[in-house]
């Protein structure tokens, strides 16, 4: 029996889709059978980040409406044969699907896959309700900014109210240099406000932009973000992995390249 994990945040632009793509790919690298579902109907982009846009024939709404079978709509990943994507529809909107249908779909996919990752749209409306309907577990993504943390707080409240029992936190785009100067909240500060368990901290890394644009998730590569995402995947699978020491490495990194490369 598989596990349904929803990746959500409330606020937009904090890295839900990037995280979904990287965690999904990472879990596939750990030899799990994984399917990613883009629930952002009308604003799809998980397929772009995965570099699978040109392979889309059928989509989530087609499956829900019975125009095709699930098997037909699933797109196999370029690199990992045990990773699949169920893309969202671009010409429809969130009301094309309801929570009951989503949770039924999740139940069907659970039979076949180890992990079902749902990429949730921003906001708390219909799209959010659809995405969390069948979820066993939630990963809440936030950046260390007050607005993102505020929204994450609201989202955690809504997840609790909807009986999604396990909620873990990913602090994304952390900049250790700013934390040191006292200009940015640390991951500990964020955790204290939200009072949920931290499952990973992803440093702000320009390689993410490069990998996103190329449509190749960087998880597992020898970059800070790549290592951070791999660790998150290990923790999801149940391994006990210590947290990266962002401090030290980032410092050396910025000392060597940071100043020259930036401008």
């Amino acid at each position, binding site marked *: 029996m598989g596990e349904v994990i929803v990746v959500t945040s409330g606020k937009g632009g904090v890295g839900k889709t990037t995280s979904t793509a990287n965690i999904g790919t990472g879990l596939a690298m750990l030899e799990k059978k994984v399917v990613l579902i883009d629930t952002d109907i009308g604003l799809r982009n998980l397929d772009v980040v995965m570099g699978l846009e040109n392979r889309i024939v059928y989509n989530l709404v087609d499956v829900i409406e019975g125009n095709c079978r699930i098997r037909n709509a699933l797109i196999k990943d370029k690199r990992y044969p045990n990773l699949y994507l169920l893309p969202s529809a671009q010409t429809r909107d969130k009301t094309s699907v309801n929570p009951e249908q989503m949770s039924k779909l999740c139940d069907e996919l659970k039979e076949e896959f180890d992990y079902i990752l749902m990429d949730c749209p921003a906001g708390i409306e219909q799209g959010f309700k659809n995405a969390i309907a069948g979820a066993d577990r939630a990963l809440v993504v936030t950046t260390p900014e007050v607005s993102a943390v*505020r*929204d994450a*707080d*609201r989202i*955690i*409240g*809504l997840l*609790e109210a909807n009986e999604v029992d396990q909620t873990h936190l990913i602090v994304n785009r952390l900049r250790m240099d700013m934390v040191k100067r006292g200009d940015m909240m640390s991951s500990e500060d964020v955790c204290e*406000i939200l*009072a949920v368990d931290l499952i990973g901290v992803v440093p702000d890394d320009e390689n993410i932009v490069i990998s996103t644009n190329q449509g190749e998730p960087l998880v597992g590569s020898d970059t800070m973000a790549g290592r951070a995402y791999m660790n998150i995947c290990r923790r999801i699978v149940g391994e006990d992995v210590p947290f990266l020491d962002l401090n030290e490495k980032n410092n050396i990194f910025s000392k060597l390249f940071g100043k020259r490369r930036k401008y």
Partner: protein
Amino acid sequence: MSTVNNAVMIKGNKYGIIVVLSPDEKFDTLKKLVADKFKESSKFFENAKMAISFEGRNLTNEEQREILDIIEENTDMHIVCVIDNDKEKEELFRKTLEQKLMELENNTGQFYKGILRSGASLEFETSVVIIGDVNNGARVVSKGNIIVLGSLKGTAFAGATGNTNSFVVALDMRPTQIRIADSIARSPDKPIKEASKETKIAFLEDGNIYIEPLNKSVLQDINL
């Protein structure tokens, strides 16, 4: 006709209804009019429980009982008690009732365990002890006092029905807004960077809300 129509009137007040009876009509006519009047409005009252008082005419006990019987016959409502129409007595009842209610709000309380997250809003009839944080964007409303065993970052409204003796206590006091009775205080625009978390109390004095560290002298000033 108009005199007949006005011979029986039903008015409402805070605690129930007042039946105004004309002193000029015969009692038998009045009885019939009362019956008609209540039959008309029985839908409105449904099975409400309320106190009743009579005005406009001095009734003997016998007459009073007769009218009460008519009312019970024609409607589903329950007359809980008959209040003498006496301004002084009414004032006394009102005062004791309100005082009792206020005491209840301040002296009795309940516990709530959990984190109040953004968007959550809790309202309590009595005082409340919250075991957990009240995050930004959350709201607690109590008719009595609010005590937060955690950090208070959202909005707290104590003494919601106007009790100016109400107070708010938090282990870590950083509220967006505090309201006590009719007064509102908001957080400073520039956050004060404090070295340590400290238990503080917010109370109302001369229409201003003060926030002070919770120490012995402040504790002594608390009125329940």
